[in-house]
């Protein structure tokens, strides 16, 4: 979706504010205890396996631009978690609003125990999959990012659409977020790092250099 989360190249947000760690000190990771809990709860409930990371990202970005931009980072995470809990049937909206259980729990999901935390994090969730067909592009190929405006989830940023680039790296096939976020399954696609010259995106005043973006094969057309 062309949402407010797709921020590349927007202007008007003001300067970046480095933290104490940037200045050689030590900044706290969380600004309040509730942020700490939202972080931990999101990871813990995610371990039930009732949704995937693409669904999580879509749940966070799928909201009105004004609402997205008005929220702090962990407010967005909290809203995303609440949305996923309701969509997955783990909780009802009424239960979340009231903060208590009003119905028996859904079928007992996998529950992450403290003793499993280190091993679970160390294992992670690799997105690489066996390819179902050979890659359409080889290193050095000239490509163009597709012009598109899908209503659902996508990981092709708006600022690249229609711009020429060059295949730089091939990462093999990976879970395709556009389908995986919306119940369409993993449908692995080849993934490439594509180099876009900054001048092809921002014009002649751009800095010398390139933007390297991970693009799934369906995002790319061969250059004419």
């Amino acid at each position, binding site marked *: 979706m062309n949402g407010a989360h*797709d*921020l*590349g190249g*927007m*202007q008007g*947000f003001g300067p*970046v*504010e*480095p*933290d104490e*760690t*940037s200045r050689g000190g030590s900044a706290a*990771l969380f*600004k*309040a205890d*509730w942020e700490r*809990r939202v*972080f931990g*709860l999101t990871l*813990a*409930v995610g371990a*039930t396996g009732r949704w995937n990371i693409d669904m999580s*990202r879509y749940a966070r970005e799928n909201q009105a631009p004004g609402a997205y*931009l*008005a929220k*702090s980072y962990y*407010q967005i995470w*909290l809203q995303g*978690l609440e949305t996923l809990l309701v969509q997955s049937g783990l909780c009802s909206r009424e239960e*979340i609003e*009231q*903060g208590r*259980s009003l119905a028996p*729990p859904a079928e007992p999901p996998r*529950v*992450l*125990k*403290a003793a499993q935390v280190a091993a679970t*994090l*160390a294992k*992670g*969730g*690799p*997105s*690489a999959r066996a390819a179902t067909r050979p890659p359409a592009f080889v290193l050095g190929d000239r490509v163009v990012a597709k012009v598109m405006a899908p209503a659902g989830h996508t*990981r092709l940023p708006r*600022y690249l659409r229609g711009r020429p680039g060059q295949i730089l790296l091939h*990462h093999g096939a*990976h*879970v395709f977020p556009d389908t995986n976020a919306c119940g369409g399954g993993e449908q692995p696609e080849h*993934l490439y790092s594509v180099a876009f010259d*900054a001048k092809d995106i921002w014009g002649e005043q751009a*800095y*010398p*250099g*390139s*933007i*390297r*973006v*991970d693009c799934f094969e369906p995002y790319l057309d061969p250059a004419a």
Partner: protein
Amino acid sequence: MAPEDHDPSHSHSHDHPHGHDHDAGPDPMTKRVQALEALLVEKGYVDPVAVDALIETYETKIGPRNGARVVARAWADPDYRARLLADATGAIAELGFAGRQGEHMVAVENATGLHNLVVCTLCSCYPWPVLGVPPTWYKSAAYRSRAVLEPRGVLEEFGVRLPEDTEFRIWDSTAEIRYLVIPERPAGTEDWTEDQLAELVTRDSMIGTGLAKSPQEVSSPGGTVS
């Protein structure tokens, strides 16, 4: 999103208590999250001890010191550097760092006249096993919008000025590949041990918003090894 300093929900948090709020109980965000956690525990979906363990892991165990070990090894050991550039996931796992949000790593190297910078314009993708959880500024609208458009201006806000003809390589991590910047090794460290070198590697130097510290910036070489 709004700068977090201006987020009204923070003004009543535990970290910034205001005397006049004490009688009113917790602020709305705290109340909402406490209620949600109580519901999830009551339903049997989460073990609060596991939630504590997850938080503690990223507050105390997994952070940029891990990445600093990787960079220091790459500086000190040419064979390791070659492995890191060829297969970062495997080379980083050699040092015991792997897993969530670092399943597919790529290492990119700065050089004279060449500077790498990592961003996620769409959300907050960041290599957790080597750098920990991303800082607030990395997730901010200002950084996500501008890193790809005007990296030079962003770097200046971090106090970093590079020569005008520096080539920028901006890595927008839109998929599950995670990027680690190998900063340039500072001059005057030729005989330093790996432990000493690791002290020069800052979090920001591995994102690209900073450079490695110079020998003069660490108080006593070898004396501050963690």
